[in-house]
């Protein structure tokens, strides 16, 4: 197994891409620009999944998230009129309260992540490198193996959830409800 190459460089590159993409998502006037920034963020996150030895989740992220869900978003943006929305006021009247709530949440995160017990943070690093050639098979065994399938029932429930969501979306988008 090859050791990872230049992990800090790629981590900070991808993290910067994600943060900048996220800031662009919540600040752009044009919803299409926001969607493109979000796609950039999602692709950088897929690369981070690869760095975390999760190739299957990375593939699902690219195909389903960046491919499927974002195309759905772009279609809906085309259906509604974005020209008028881009000319209006972009932030609501409660933006100060929103920023304050987010700052409180950020303080909570900082408090948790800087907590140390006996000189170590609460989340140290796992050291073992793990081969990714068996990753997809192992996930499939957890999801729908008859013997080891811990999550088989949850998997079926998820498919039912998707069916309900599709029916709901079709009913919502009908001419008259």
């Amino acid at each position, binding site marked *: 197994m090859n050791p990872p190459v230049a992990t800090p460089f790629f981590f900070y590159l991808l993290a910067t891409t994600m943060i900048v993409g996220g800031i662009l998502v919540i600040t752009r006037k044009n919803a299409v620009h926001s969607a493109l920034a979000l796609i950039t963020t999602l692709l950088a996150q897929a690369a981070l999944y690869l760095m975390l030895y999760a190739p299957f989740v990375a593939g699902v992220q690219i195909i389903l998230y960046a491919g499927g869900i974002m195309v759905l978003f772009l279609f809906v943006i085309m259906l509604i009129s974005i020209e008028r929305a881009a000319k*209006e006021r972009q932030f609501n009247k409660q933006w100060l309260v929103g920023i304050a709530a987010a700052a409180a949440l950020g303080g909570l995160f900082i408090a948790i992540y800087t907590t140390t017990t006996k000189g170590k943070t609460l989340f140290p690093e796992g050291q073992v490198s793990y081969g990714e050639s068996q990753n997809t098979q192992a996930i499939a065994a957890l999801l729908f193996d008859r013997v080891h399938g811990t999550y088989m029932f949850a998997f079926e429930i998820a498919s039912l959830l998707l069916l309900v969501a599709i029916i709901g*979306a079709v009913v919502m988008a009908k001419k008259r409800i």
Partner: protein
Amino acid sequence: MEAMLHITTLHYLVLGAALFLLGVIGVLTRRNVVIVLMSIELILNAVNLNLVAFSRYWQGMPGHLGGPGALHGQVFAIFVITDAAAEAAVGLGILIAFFRNKETVNVDEVNLLKW
């Protein structure tokens, strides 16, 4: 500097927290409901990043919860992605119905139930 250059689980958690905060700010302050939905996607992705990072962390841990087969975090990330797809489909369906009735996409004009 030493702590900066050795990428640990905590680095991924901090990145996830930053993305989560960006999503929260977007949900709480934006008026355009499409961008509010995209901010919710940002929040779900931050959670996913944490789940996969913890999965990697447990793969390096001993015990019956750890070991190379500890992929529960990645399986949960897949379930979260499924939920995100369902949420996006229903949310955008509601958005289309709403836009057809009210001719606007601003969340603070959705005040029919407001007293």
